[in-house]
């Protein structure tokens, strides 16, 4: 681990000022990803700014009836918060599908948004990686890529975003609150994470000096029809090969509103609004679900080891929509897929 300076910010203003003074500094909250990356010399910040004392650890009602989740609310507190569990069970479920209880106790909402890919080559400083060292090449494209992306890839990078939480937040149309040198602003969840394109080193559209302060959930009710399904190589403590977040509103046997997002398949949580539009006004069933799945995967591309993910994602989308429509969301406790 490289030597680094450590500063602790006591309020948001101090944190923003500290970031402005050294834009290359890294924010540390739970540290569950950053510290690992520093140990591997993947992240080598000269300065680390500790924001754990900032008052960003509450969940508050918004005027429009939604909830505003402070950036420092832990994944565990968020998953088990009664308002989240009752009104946004899709988010609770996605959180509980991720990591382990110990990690969820430490990991924060803001940090979860900023966790970095689990691409083997990104972690291995003995190999090239365009995300870690722009221009050095992407060995995953023709190499070990079983866990890699099938949607929105570029010839520079086929890494995935590993979060479960973010997949649910994308489906729930969340907004990210940010404060930066120019003041406060919000970023639609859709616009928060990026596709790799020719700048895979950039995971998000945050600007230098930006600090995430909260994630806001709009006041929408998908409690009757939702599910988060995560497929992985073991039953816990593994990243998704494919995950699907589905949320529906169904009236009189027709879908009146649909949300569909995938994890484990792209450089960002992959929400497909065209597929959602296809589902809207359709009758819930294998036919409409399969059509939506086909739409989502229209542009999917496999790279060898990960080609099975295309078929797996298709099946998972159909299954998750069925779970949502049936009102039988995937349990993250017994993990049995129905």
């Amino acid at each position, binding site marked *: *681990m490289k030597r680094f300076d450590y500063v602790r910010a006591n309020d948001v203003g101090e944190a923003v000022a500290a970031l402005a003074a050294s834009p290359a500094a890294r924010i540390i909250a739970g540290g569950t990803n950053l510290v690992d990356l520093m140990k591997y010399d993947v992240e080598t910040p000269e300065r680390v700014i500790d924001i754990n004392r900032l008052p960003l650890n509450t969940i508050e009602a918004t005027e429009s009836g939604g909830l505003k989740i402070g950036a420092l609310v832990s994944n565990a507190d968020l998953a088990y918060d009664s308002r989240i569990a009752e009104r946004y069970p899709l988010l609770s479920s996605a959180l509980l599908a991720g990591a382990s209880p110990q990690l969820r106790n430490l990991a924060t909402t803001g940090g979860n948004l900023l966790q970095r890919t689990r691409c*083997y080559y990104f972690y291995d400083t003995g190999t090239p990686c365009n995300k870690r060292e722009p221009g050095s090449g992407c*060995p995953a494209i023709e190499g070990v890529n079983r866990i890699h992306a099938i949607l929105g890839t570029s010839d520079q990078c086929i890494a995935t975003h590993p979060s479960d939480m973010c997949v649910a937040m994308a489906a729930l149309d969340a907004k990210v609150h940010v404060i930066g040198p120019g003041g406060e602003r919000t970023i639609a969840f859709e616009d928060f994470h990026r596709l790799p394109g020719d700048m895979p080193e950039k995971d998000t559209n945050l600007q230098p000096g930006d600090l995430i302060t909260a994630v806001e959930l709009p006041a929408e009710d998908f409690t009757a029809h939702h599910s988060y399904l995560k497929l992985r190589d*073991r039953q816990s403590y593994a990243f998704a090969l494919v995950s699907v977040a589905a949320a529906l509103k169904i009236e009189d046997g027709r879908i009146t509103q649909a949300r569909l997002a995938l994890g484990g398949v792209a450089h960002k949580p992959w929400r497909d609004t065209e597929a959602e539009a296809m589902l809207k006004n359709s009758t819930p069933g294998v036919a409409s679900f399969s059509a939506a799945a086909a739409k989502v995967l229209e542009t999917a591309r496999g790279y060898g080891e990960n080609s099975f993910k295309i078929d797996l994602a298709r099946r*998972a989308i159909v*299954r998750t929509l069925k779970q949502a429509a049936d009102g039988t969301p995937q349990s993250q406790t017994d993990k049995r897929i129905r």
Partner: protein
Amino acid sequence: MSEISLTQNPAHVRHGSNVGQPLTRRDGLLKVTGAARYAADNHPESMVYAALAVSSIARGRVTALDVAAAKAHPGVIDVMTPENRPPLAEDPDAKNHPFMFRLDVLQNDRVRYPNQPIAVVIADTLEAATEGAALLAPRYDVEPARVGLDGNEVFTPQGVGVGNPPNDSHGDVEAGLAAASRRVEATYETPAQYHNPMEPHAIVAAWDGDRLSIDTPTQGLAMAVGRVAGLFGIAPEDIHIRSPFLGGGFGGKGVMSGPQVLGILAARMVGRPVKLVLRREQMYGPVGHRGPTRQTLRLGTAGDGALTALAHHTRTASSTFDDFFEPASNASHTLYASPAIATSHDGVRLDTGTPMFMRAPGEATGSLALEGALDEMAEACGMDPLDFRLKNYAEVEPTSGKPFSSKALRECYAQGAERFGWAARPLQPRQMRDASGLLVGWGMGTATFPALMFQAEARAAIKSDGTGLMETGAQDMGQGAWTALAQIAADGLGLDIDQVEFRAGTSDLPDAGIAGGSGHTATAGMALHDAGAKVIARLADLATSAENSPLFGAGNAGVVARDGRLFRRDDESRSESYADILARAGLPEIEARGKSAADPAVRNAYAMHAHGAVFAEVKVHPELGQIRVTRLVGAFAAGRVINPRMVESQYLGGMIWGVSFALHEHAITDRRSGRIMNANLAEYHVPVNADIPSVEAILVEEHDPHVNALGIKGVGEIGVTGTAGAIANAVWHATGIRVRHLPIGLEGLLAGGLGDA
């Protein structure tokens, strides 16, 4: 409590008060409170830290290291490279016997596998040493890596495992296949696997002149002393190794590794005690692994399902510079009766670290393929898999023709099947669903592991207060040796376990042999037993020859030792306490030394193996292919059980390794660079609690009058065997799809044509 029938030693000793009891681990409290001191917990005064720099390439030469940059880093004391590494008395590339493995200890600039040590940085702090190692920024001449079972020229190795012939043939396999009414040929592939004990290899080494003090985990204290003595040209008695606890070994700590030797060299170089602990990713290279295999089974059966031929061929890999070839085909030597059995191996040399013994080396891999092929043949014959195995039950060891010293495998089949409910299994696959619509499959496999014994010594003493002392340099890897061996020791002295001080885990005690080959309890236990018998015999001589002892003249009738007293065998109203016997003789203590070794005559006459039967239930999602092992029942017979709690724990752990083998473990190599891409516990998957809903082990009673006087066979490895095959067979039974490429992942089922919505 039954009395042990002694076939080798004088019958002074009566066992039973301690052996057979389900005692909890005597070191359990130390471990759960964190008080147990593992090697890396030691911090001798003035100790400094060493960190390895390891190669990022698989093959080539190191052309440059920025030693100046590392040395300039604050806290760095020195940097050890091939240029300045202190001399060794022995060539680390020498191989004087098959148990001697070549080491990479900076003898030159060659790189022969990824993660090979290429320098050691010694510093005041771990952080400084680690950063110093990173600052070395090595440059290389890179040569193409040879990767995968087709990655190099194929040849027949001289030996497989340690010193076993690569090919073995009994009867005419081709004729048997030609005459068969049904034939099955199947090829199974298993990946490279890494031991991954929780405790990484670690060493704290301190020199005092030419005397060397070491804390390091080892499964073989005496062998480690011998290796270090040879390498450094010092006398074995000047080396003291402490290894009271190992955080898992699994074969990966069987012999001293290069990094451990580098820790000793670093201490010599800086003249201060040095601690060196491997990072997790550094364990994927210099400390061994299980080699990958590609196994082809060819079976033939007659119309009644009796095997006419069994051929088992294995392709495996060793390193380019040393030999350990996973002896997978040899798993077919002992289990199933066939008039013709042929086993063979060939190998390739790859740019990897040298493979090593890993829990059930050969048996784990070989049994997976054998049990899979057997299941395929049972299917071809339209027979229940258990009936098919019973049909081909080996009454004598098929390849040697020897009778078994004992074999309660039929009872294992029966008890396991009963407990599991096997009789309700439909013959055809894809017949069962659970209430939520998941496909349910049942599969089974036979478990087997040889009953090995090595050589050991022990010392026993009885003190004037009547308490006992037993010593042997045994190793507790977590398997419970501290407890089970103390139980044998206590019975050997006719004392309650609380009355016996049991010493183990350091090299200044008598050589207990290695904790490996599932032979530690038998080997060290028999040495303790022998020492106990001898010290009791001396005590009996004192008593029976003393005119004022109640046992005077009982020499012919014999005495029995129990509860700290000797009893006249034919009249137990006459007895005397140990303390009284020693007091009369005016002795502060009485001692004796014992030893153990396999009896070659008995070994020649009998085939000796533990056996078991494992039954697995899996549930598979009919569209998504997600597999879960929902139930495992294993029934094992392994001779005398010293401590049923420890034995059950060994079986359960072994069976969980089987789950891991079937569904999870896989070292993933980049075929261009030769690097292992998932060298960490986040991505090198082993089961978590959620993957093991129900696992159960049945201890089947078995009395073996031949294997050794205690009747112990060994339980450390057998649980892995049988289990992986049972799970693979259950996946087939659930889905109708045979996945022969391990680990079985959901893509294997999708590719196999798993149904759709």
